[in-house]
C-alpha cells in the first residue's frame, strides 16, 4: 500500500509538472514573438531553445504519465479521456515549438504597421491556451468549477478569430503594395499562431464533457 501511495503522489506531481511546462511554454512563446517583432534575434533564439527544452520535457512526462496510468491501473474509468486531454495539451506546446521554428526558418517579413495586430493575435491565442491550464487542473481537484473556467477559453478563442480575420482583411484588401506570395506567407503565419487557441478550444470541448461525466 505504501508503494501505491508513492506511485499516486509521483503521478500527481508529474501531471502538475506537465501543466507547468505548457503554461511556461505559452509564456515563452508570447515573449518569443515579441522579440521577433522587435527584431531582437538573440532573445528570440533563447526563447526557441527554452521552448524546445520544455517540449521535450513535456513529451517525456506525457509518456511517463500514460505509462504509469496503465501499468498501475490508475483511473481505469477515466484513463482514456485523461490521456486524450494530455495529448491535446501536448499539441499546444508542439504548435508553439513548430510556430517559433517557422519564424526562425522562414523569417516572415511582417510590416511594422501589422506589429500591433500580430501582438494582439498572439496575446489572445496565448490567453486561450493559458486559460485551459487552470481548467485542466480543476478537473482533477474540483470538477464542479471546470465549466465556468472554460468560458474564458471560448472567449479568447473567438477574440483570436476576430483579430486574425481583421488582420487578414487588412493584408489582402488594404495593403495593395504587398505581393500575393508575401500576403499568403503572412496568412500562413497567422494560421499557425491561431492554431494555439484552436487547440485550446479542442481541449476545452473535451474537458467540458469529461467534467460532466465525473460529476454525474
Amino acid at each position, binding site marked *: 500500500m505504501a508503494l501505491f501511495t508513492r506511485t499516486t503522489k509521483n503521478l500527481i506531481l508529474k501531471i502538475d509538472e506537465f501543466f507547468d511546462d505548457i503554461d511556461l511554454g505559452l509564456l515563452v512563446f508570447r515573449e518569443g514573438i515579441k522579440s521577433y517583432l522587435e527584431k531582437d534575434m538573440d532573445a528570440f533564439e533563447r526563447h526557441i531553445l527554452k521552448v524546445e527544452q520544455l517540449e521535450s520535457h513535456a513529451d517525456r512526462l506525457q509518456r511517463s504519465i500514460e505509462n504509469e496510468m496503465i501499468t498501475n491501473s490508475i*483511473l481505469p474509468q*477515466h484513463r482514456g479521456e485523461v490521456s486524450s486531454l494530455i495529448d491535446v495539451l501536448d499539441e499546444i506546446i508542439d504548435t508553439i515549438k513548430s510556430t517559433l521554428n517557422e519564424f526562425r526558418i522562414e523569417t516572415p517579413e511582417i510590416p511594422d504597421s501589422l506589429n500591433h495586430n500580430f501582438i494582439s493575435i498572439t496575446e489572445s491565442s496565448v490567453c486561450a491556451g493559458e486559460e485551459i491550464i487552470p481548467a485542466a487542473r480543476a478537473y482533477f481537484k474540483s470538477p464542479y468549477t471546470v465549466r465556468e473556467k472554460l468560458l474564458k477559453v471560448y472567449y479568447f478563442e473567438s477574440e483570436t478569430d476576430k483579430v486574425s480575420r481583421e488582420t487578414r482583411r487588412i493584408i489582402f484588401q488594404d495593403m495593395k503594395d504587398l505581393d500575393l506570395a508575401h500576403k499568403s506567407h503572412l496568412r500562413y503565419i497567422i494560421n499557425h499562431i491561431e492554431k494555439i487557441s484552436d487547440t485550446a478550444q479542442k481541449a476545452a470541448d473535451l474537458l467540458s464533457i469529461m467534467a460532466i461525466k465525473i460529476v454525474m
Partner: protein
Amino acid sequence: MILLFLTSGLFLGWSLGANDASNIFGSAVGSKMISFRKAAIIASIFVIIGAVLQGSGASVTLGKLGAVNALGGSFTVALAAGATVYLMTKFSLPVSTTQAIVGAIIGWNLFTGNRTDMSTLTQIISTWITGPVLGGAFAVVLYMILKTIKKKSSIHLIRFESYVRTGLVIVGAFGAYSLGANNIANVMGVFVPAFNLNDLDLGIITLSSSQQLFLLGGIAIATGIITYSNRVMEVVGNQIMELSSDAALVVVLAQALVLFIFSSSAFSSFIESTGLPPFPMVPVSSTQVIIGSIIGIGLYKGARNINFRIVGDIAKGWILTPVASGLIAFFSLFFVKNIFNINVGTGIAENGGSIIGNTASASSAHSISEIMGFLITGLLGLGIVILILYYFAERKKKNELRKSEEKFWNNLK
C-alpha cells in the same frame, strides 16, 4: 460413503462462490480497479474466515425451518438447491442460493411430513424484501455522504481513486467475510444436524463439528470464486446500471453491512438492548441486496439509467427459484428413497424436537473426524503454498516490469 454425501453441499458451495462472489468484487473487477486474481484471493480468504468464525448464527435459523436429520436427505436437499442454481444460471435467470436452499428444505419438509415452521419461514421471506430495501437505503445514504466529502474536500482525482481502490479492497474483504458468515448456512446448514464430529485442534484454533463443516464449505466457495467467478465478475454491476468507482464502493459496502447485520448475533443483541426488535439471523441473498443497492443509487440519480427489464427478471426469480428448488428436492427425495433405498430423513416429534433417524454413528464418527482432520489440514496447507507461490509470482512480474521500464527510458536517452 458419508463423506460422499457432502459432495452435493460442496457443489452448492462452489456454485455460490462462482455466482455470489461476483457481487462483492464484480464492480471493482469489471471497472478494472482491482485485478481478478487479487480480488479472488482476498474474497477466498475472508469467505473462509467469515464462515468459520460467524457462520453459526444464520445456520441455526435455517435449522429451525427444517432440521434435515439424515445424510441422504441433506445430500439430496443440497443437490436440489445446487441443481436449481446451476439450471437457472444456465438459462440466464437471476438466482439466489438462499432462496434455492429454502425451497429445497421446504420440499424436504413436505416429503418427510415435517411441519414447516411458519414463523421462521415468514422471518426468512421478510428478509427477501427487507434485504434489498435496506441495501438500497444504505447505498443512498452512503453515496450522499461520499459525494459530499468528495465535493467539499477538493481532493485530487487520482488520490481519491487510490482511496476508493483501497476502500474497495477493505470493504470487499468485509463483504466476503459477511458473505461467508451469512451464506455458509445455505451450503452446509443442512448437514449440521446430521454430522457429529470430534473437535479439531489446529494449534491456533479449535474447530467444533459445525465449524469443520463450515470450513469445508468455505473452501468450496473459495474454489468457486477462483475457478469460475471471473466471467461473472466482468459483467456484474454494469447489467442493471453502469457504476462509477465510488458508486461501486458504496454498493459493496451497503451489501456487506446488510449481510453483516443479518448474521451478527452481537449486533442483534445490541439492537435488542436499545428496545428495538432484534434483527433475525437469516441467510440473505447477496445478489438481491446488491441489486437493491444499485437500484437505490439509480433512483437517487434520477432512475434514468436503470435497466428495468433486468429488475423484472429478478422479481420473477424470487418466485421461480424456491418453487423450482422445492419441486426438484421433493422428486429427488422420492427417487433417492425409493430407488436407491437411502434414508432421507424422518418426521421430528413435535413435543421434544428430538431427532429420529440416522446421523453418523458414534463408531464411524471417530474415523470421519480423522479423515476430516487430514482433509482440512491438507487443504489449508495447499492454500498457504498457493498464496506463497502467488506472492513470488507477483514480485517477479513487478521486477520484470520495472526492468523493462528502465530499459525503455535508457534507450530513449
